[in-house]
């Protein structure tokens, strides 16, 4: 039982990272209908920035905030310069361009920070004795902290979307760009804001993951795939779905590794099966809105 609780917390902590990344994907999908393939890589680049900031003596939380700001700027830049000019061409062009961003950003970090792992201190205590017990299970504070960060981000996003004028405008743009334009919302600025927000959240996910996973150029390759499966599972246009999907995928991964021995090295085939079954049997995901296509 204690092992079960421990694995559950491991899964939830891992799942929180996926949920953060999935949230970022969902924010972008809602506003522009694109899947930001470069999301994870932008996060990795920001984590490298954070590690350089901490090396130069800044406190960790300042470094993380700065990294999030950089993530905001990079993602906003990508929207304005890369995506918007080709948005109205065929959908393939945007995907190709975003894959280009993926490659360029990934290799940029290799170019500037090399291929050796960097260290990034955690925001939470990581000493050997910094854990608490539920029964016999030792739960590390770091994991609880990551879950807490997810909770804070979810609450902030909820307040932003439902209690502010900008959030209202963002929901309006997500719903219908042309009508939003007609009622006087500056759609372009809102789109930039949405992408920037997603970039900041993605950067947060990367700096949360980096201390335990080790900061290398491939930090977010796997998590990005898990997070996109999570976002599709929850429904690509539903923030609630992203959180639930992320936590579910995290739990699934932890339990597969813990209990199903023959599948512990076969996570990606399992993810492929999950992804395909969602797409084929419930394309809208768990919480997404069903798309009605008019022919």
């Amino acid at each position: 039982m204690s092992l079960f609780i421990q694995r559950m917390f491991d899964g939830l902590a891992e799942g929180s990272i996926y949920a953060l990344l999935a949230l970022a994907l969902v924010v972008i999908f809602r506003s522009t209908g694109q899947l930001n393939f470069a999301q994870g890589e932008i996060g990795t680049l920001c984590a490298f920035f954070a590690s350089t900031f901490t090396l130069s003596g800044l406190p960790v939380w300042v470094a993380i905030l700065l990294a999030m700001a950089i993530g905001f700027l990079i993602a906003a830049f990508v929207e304005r310069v890369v995506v918007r000019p080709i948005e109205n061409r065929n959908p393939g062009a945007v995907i190709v361009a975003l894959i280009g961003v993926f490659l360029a950003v990934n290799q940029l970090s290799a170019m500037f920070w090399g291929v050796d792992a960097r260290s990034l201190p955690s925001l939470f205590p990581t000493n050997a004795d910094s854990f608490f017990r539920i029964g016999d299970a030792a739960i590390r504070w770091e994991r609880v902290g990551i879950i807490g960060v997810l909770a804070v981000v979810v609450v902030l996003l909820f307040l932003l979307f439902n209690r502010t004028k900008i959030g209202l405008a963002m929901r309006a743009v997500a719903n219908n760009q042309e009508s939003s334009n007609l009622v006087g919302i500056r759609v372009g600025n809102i789109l930039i804001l949405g992408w920037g927000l997603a970039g900041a959240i993605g950067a947060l996910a990367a700096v949360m993951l980096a201390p335990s996973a080790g900061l290398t150029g491939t930090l977010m390759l796997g998590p990005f795939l898990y997070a996109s499966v999570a976002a599709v599972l929850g429904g690509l246009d539903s923030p609630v779905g992203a959180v639930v999907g992320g936590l579910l995928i995290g739990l699934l991964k932890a339990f597969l590794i813990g209990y199903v021995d023959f599948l512990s090295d076969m996570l990606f085939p399992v993810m492929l099966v999950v992804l395909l079954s969602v797409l084929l049997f419930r394309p809208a995901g768990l919480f997404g809105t069903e798309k009605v296509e008019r022919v």
Partner: protein
Amino acid sequence: MSDVHHEGDSVTLDDGEVEMATEVVSGKSAGGLPVFTPQHGALHWLGRVLVFALPLAYLLMRVFGVTGIVGGGWSNSGLGLLADAFIIAIAVMGVNLITGYTGQLSIGHSAFFAIGAYTGLVLTQGRVSTPFFGDENVWDPGWTIPVAAALCFLVGCVVGLPALRLKGIYLALTTLVFVEAVRSILKYEKFEDVTGGATGIKGDKYTPPEYVFDFFGIKLPTGLDGRADLNQWMIYLSLALLLFIMLMVSGIMRSRIGRAMVATRDNELAAEVMGVNLSVIKTVAFGLSGAITGIGGALFGLKLGLVDADVPLFGLFGAITLLVAMVVGGAAQNWGPMVGAVFYVFVNEIARSIGEAPADYEAVFTITLIVLVAVVMVVVARYVMQHRNDIRANVSNGAWKAVLVVVGSMSALVAAGVMLLGISDGGKLDGLGGVIFGVLLILFARFVPFGAVGTFRIFRSRFVQIIPKPPSESRAAKAPEGVQVQGR
């Protein structure tokens, strides 16, 4: 009738390929005159080879450091690169078939490449029991290529089945996960007997035949300097296969299936209404493209002589590599993959040598910084010039935007500075090639959507003049009524 009927009344440009949507110059000629179709006789091709192919071959040899003809010995690594370029071109032909012609964006074809490579080595190393073939389960390298193609065709059809219902980002995401899934399966320890698990398969060196052909005493040695050299043999083999596949694909694209593929890409609904069976077409297209990429993979495995699941071309970056080569060469262009792959290998090699050389980092980064500053200044200046009336008329509105722009550009500079800090503790120019290709993908997606070959064709078509031949001299006029003859 799914077949697009413009055989008879289309104007065939030059070497007779009109399939791309970019360049369809169709329509009946004025006055009901039959249209001039160039007759491609042997002499025509001979002339073409002399004029284009020989200089190109010479150029390629010089580019890849092959200096044997003028003395100085053969550069073996240069030959290996040329072989790599042709092998990658074959793989890109597969991607081009499904993404360029059929319009199903796949970022997962490196999986087929990996499957092909593994098939080649598994069979030549006798790791599976094949009772009726091969000498003690050990296959002749050449015969593994069709097997790899067949296996990849099957896998492609299976992958194509769910892909029937997926489009756009969903298909791209699924193929992306597919790559990683295949890599996990190849690494899986339970299949270690066949695939070698995490360590992969290390094969014996593939010994090339001594003669390219030995025909009634007419012998063409494999190595031009007398030794049978693997790289040179791989160049012949992969070039021959590449040309064969190009011929095959161009044939497919002229057939009923090919037209149906293009129709599917351009408008699925319209294609279906015209009677195209979408599921059959997409499945066949996926299978065929998988098979073609698998052939490339088999050649790659044979040339390398060892495979493991961590070979870069087998993973996510391999898939992106194939995409880069296709986009740079030109989607839905028959010559695109070859141009793109040669470009990729060439630029990658240059970038690698720059990255490895003890470069003058300070100079490189000073230049980078200067370029960055210049770009930021130009952007700011352009912005101010565009919005100067705005700023004057509506100070508050203009002011916050101006502040935003200034803050943005300042932070870009700060970011550049931090990157320089990162460099100072031991960075190398490792990712230069990747950065170049990433930026190229972005630029091509925006400015050169038809790739190098497509743009060249558009450019060339401005200089083409269509002159109808008098009816009596045209072969089409001699044909019985209702039957269109296209001279090729």
